[in-house]
């Protein structure tokens, strides 16, 4: 067993607290990550985060099999933020943001990238310390770097959700969004969930000290991120910006809206929510194609928000008997 408190840290509240909640008091191979030997590869970093959060009682889920703009859209975040049941989960979610595509030519921007998402409900009192512990676990040395919690109130107009929190800066780079959800789908979160969203590529670039995302070591056997994704970025940027059939997309948007409404009528909120996610992604594609004006944008986002809110409302309605049987005091 290695010591969980790395030697360069003054033993104190943060880390002491972080250790207190550890079930296993063990961070595997903490030394290599922080001791100056080879930094973690992209995939090792993910494994390390999985291990860290698994040891802290999180379910380790897999990515949702749909295109979405952020890990927050994953039903394990959105729908699970509703209701009284405790919920602790961590997962990687691929994110698609068509407008961020740069044809593989920009060292920092991708139209497809990964977020690491942790959701803890209710938010634990030492969430900041737990988070800092996870940075430590993947090799961030807090004595030579500048970690800051900078105000960033999160709002997702398309999810009808908001929360207060920060973007966490590491030497001026935003590496994580840290949010206490206050509302989801227009409903008060009771209790509040804490959400951590790590930008995995950014963190990896930082840990591996590379300037170009495509130069990241994906594994420890010489495969780079570029070898895995560069061609994908080129092709998908071209498709997103130049090729995607806008008439078909407008049509798809309408159909997802209709299907969402059908599903709501059939009292199937999860199915409805999936259609809302799809509509949201189609909207993002239309944005990338530059065929939605500023004025229309509001209307489209309003549409998606109504769908997402409708799904959340339906989910609450459907689940309330089950929730109340376990948490009799709970009500909307």
């Amino acid at each position: 067993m290695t010591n969980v408190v790395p030697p360069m840290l003054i033993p104190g509240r943060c880390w002491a607290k972080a250790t207190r909640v550890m079930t296993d008091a063990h961070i595997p191979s903490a030394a290599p990550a922080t001791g100056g030997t080879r930094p973690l590869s992209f995939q090792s970093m993910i494994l390390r985060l999985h291990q860290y959060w698994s040891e802290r009682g999180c379910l380790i889920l897999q990515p949702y099999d749909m295109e979405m703009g952020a890990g927050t859209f994953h039903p394990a975040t959105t729908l699970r933020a509703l209701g009284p049941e405790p919920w602790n989960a961590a997962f990687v979610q691929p994110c698609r943001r068509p407008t961020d595509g740069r044809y593989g030519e920009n060292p920092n921007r991708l139209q497809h990238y990964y977020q690491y998402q942790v959701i803890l409900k209710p938010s634990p009192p030492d969430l900041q310390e737990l988070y800092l512990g996870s940075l430590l676990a993947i090799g961030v040395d807090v004595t030579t770097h500048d970690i800051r919690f900078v105000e960033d109130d999160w709002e997702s107009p398309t999810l009808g959700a908001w929360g207060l929190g920060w973007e966490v800066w590491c030497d001026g780079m935003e590496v994580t969004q840290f949010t206490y959800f206050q509302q989801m789908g227009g409903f008060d979160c009771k209790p509040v969930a804490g959400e951590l969203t790590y930008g995995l590529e950014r963190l990896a670039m930082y840990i591996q000290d590379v300037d170009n995302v495509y130069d990241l070591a994906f594994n420890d056997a010489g495969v780079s991120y570029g070898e895995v994704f560069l061609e994908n970025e080129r092709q998908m940027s071209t498709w997103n910006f130049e090729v995607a059939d806008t008439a078909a997309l407008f049509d798809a948007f309408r159909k997802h809206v209709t299907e969402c409404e059908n599903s709501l009528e059939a009292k199937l909120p999860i199915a409805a929510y999936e259609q809302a996610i799809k509509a949201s992604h189609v909207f993002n594609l239309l944005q990338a194609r530059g065929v939605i004006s500023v004025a229309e944008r509001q209307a489209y986002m309003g549409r998606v928000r109504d769908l997402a809110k409708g799904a959340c409302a339906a989910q609450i309605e459907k689940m309330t008997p089950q929730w109340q049987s376990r948490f009799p005091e709970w009500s909307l």
Partner: protein
Amino acid sequence: MTDFLLELRSEEIPARMQDGARANLAKLFAAELARAGLAAAEIVTYATPRRLALIARDLPMATEAVSEEVKGPKTSAPPQALDGFLRKTGLTRERLTERNGVFFAVTEKPGRATADVLAEAIPAIIRAFPWPKSMRWGNASASTESLRWVRPLHGIVALFGEEVVPVTVAGIDSGAVTYGHRFHHPGAITIGSAADYADKLRMCHVIVDQDERAAAIRTRAAALAAEAGLELVPDEGLVAENAGLTEWPVPLLGRFDPAFLDVPAEVIQLTARVNQKYFVCRDGAGKLADAFICTANIEATDGGAKIVEGNRKVLAARLADARFFYDTDLKVPLEEQAKKLQKIVFHEKLGTLADKVDRVAKLARWLVEEGIVGGENILPGTGRGTSEAGGGGAPGSATPEAAPLHRPADGPPPHAGEDKAHLADLAERAARLCKADLVTGMVGEFPELQGLMGGYYAAAQGEDPRVAEAIRDHYKPVGQGDDVPTAPVTVAVSLADKLDTIASFFAINEKPTGSKDPFALRRAALGVSATLIAGDVRLPLARALAQQGAAVARTLAGQGIAKFPDAFRQWEARFWEARDAGTPFVRNADGSYASPMHDVQFSGGISAVIDEYVAILDGPRLDHAAVLDFFADRLKVQQREAGVRHDLIDAVFALGGEDDLVRLLARVRALQSFVGTDDGANLLAGYKRAANILKKEGVDASGATVANESLSYTPEKDEAALIAALDAAEPAAARAVAAEDFEAAMAALATLRAPIDAFFDTVTVNDPDAAKRAARLGLLARVRASVHTVADFSRIEG
């Protein structure tokens, strides 16, 4: 006397809220003390990202004892009254005192321990704390009634002297323990008292005094710049923000790749400031240097090398993105970008941005061609006052107004017409390009750079500098205090853009209501007024609105036909060609249309479409009065600061027909000085008396004609005098108004004051002789009418 220390330790408080929080903490605390009859000699507050603290100096150990006397019933009152009083006071009969036959209950309120007062005050303050945004958290948040704080609250230090004031708020017990810097000293610290609070924290790498942190940042950042041979670009906003983001601020200077300096300085500065909260520096020549200063929150063990390197990378990535946008944008002519506006909807009812740009371009051209903008500079001799200037011919005999408009002494006059045509071309060109940067990558990324980037691209692509300037500045003024455009091309585009926005949204009845102004029409109207007034631009608003109302109607009709068969599109051009040529389409008896100009008959199907098009085109029009009222309201708001009375603006607007804001304001100013004089005040009184009589008698404005008929009787002396005064004053006032000499118009009215007073003193209006009565009412109506040549005095307050 003892000091009190309160520290509320939480997760990171947003920098922008810290000053307000300190002020609120001091206010709430002082109020709680005051309720208990206590006051501190001094209240000091501190804020860091992780704590909000207060020190109250020299509090007494206890409040003073108070004796309170309550009056009860008379001793003669029935026993029930006495019983009631005893119940109310909780006293027994023996404890009451009697005086003058009345019972009194005297309760002695002993002094309370200040610690007890504090123990009640702290939870009250925390629960009532007005954060701009607050949140719930943790297990307690299962209820929406749980404590709200800006971020999760973790600790309360409450020390009165050296004693803990015991309180429990939302499960947090107060104590003497706090924590130092998150990384330098994460362990617990025990505070002894208010006296050692700041020092103990300093030893644990926390500078609790925000002003001290700000000073450290300011000084150190300037020193770092100086050491590098540069000059810091001062930015107090950034100083305060960085002080609010750090407990132990360590400014560090880094360099970025000088190749990025090709990107406009504003872009670099904006990126550095907004996204990264970095300071920037200038070199000796005053140009932006390839350096940034970030403020870390840690004394790094490597002296900050890794932090600087990390920040450099982040900035480089941001600047690379900016340069990518800039280079990509530069490759596409703005004219090409402008074509993409056809795909962007301005508003669902108002067509695309391209439609808007087309309307704006035409209006901008019209403003120049009509001589409204740039007129005085290019059309010598046609300005106001020139009619009087023709007389003497000798140098110096010209009126002051004419002086700046003099013709050159010799040589032909400048090609005024050509200049005007050129200026109109420039204005139209600028307007056609002014929104093109909205589709550029840079503005997509930094919307706040709209206009500015268009200006850069236009200049780089070889547009006339006046066009580039107009594109850059046409959004101005953005708010009160912003620069107001004065260059003619810019003024034309700026006015045209804002007037079009106002006309468009009023045409579809999207007017601001209450606090709702989603399309920022109020700001647009303020911008128009400020530009007109600053540049002395004589814009007849009603004509401009008529112009734009028609243009908007055309757009609206075009929106309507979008749902019609495509076939109409090809006829639309002909429709307008024919209409503009004065030979519009003709509607036959069978309902079909024909164009004599093109010698075409349209089929019945298309005719139905044309019918609908014409119906929208000729449908309800822009409500000019509503727009003018809207401008009047905005003008009142805008002029309030300049001390212009709103009722006087109303008084002038109420006359109707005054739609030139510059002239209106001149009139209002003259009126304001006039009503401030004795003559003015008395004339106003006389006017009001006349107006009241007329109102009572139901004489409306048409009654004025009566006075013009010859009298059937010999008028009394003061009646004749008033008629004579009116005979003189009316034409004088009218002339002065026409010449826009409003002081003279007021002076003409002032001559009526004495005759009106005398008339009311000696002449009976309500004469038994019906003819006399009618004539005298007519005379009063004439008084009212002549006063109204200047302003509607009934709107003047007081």
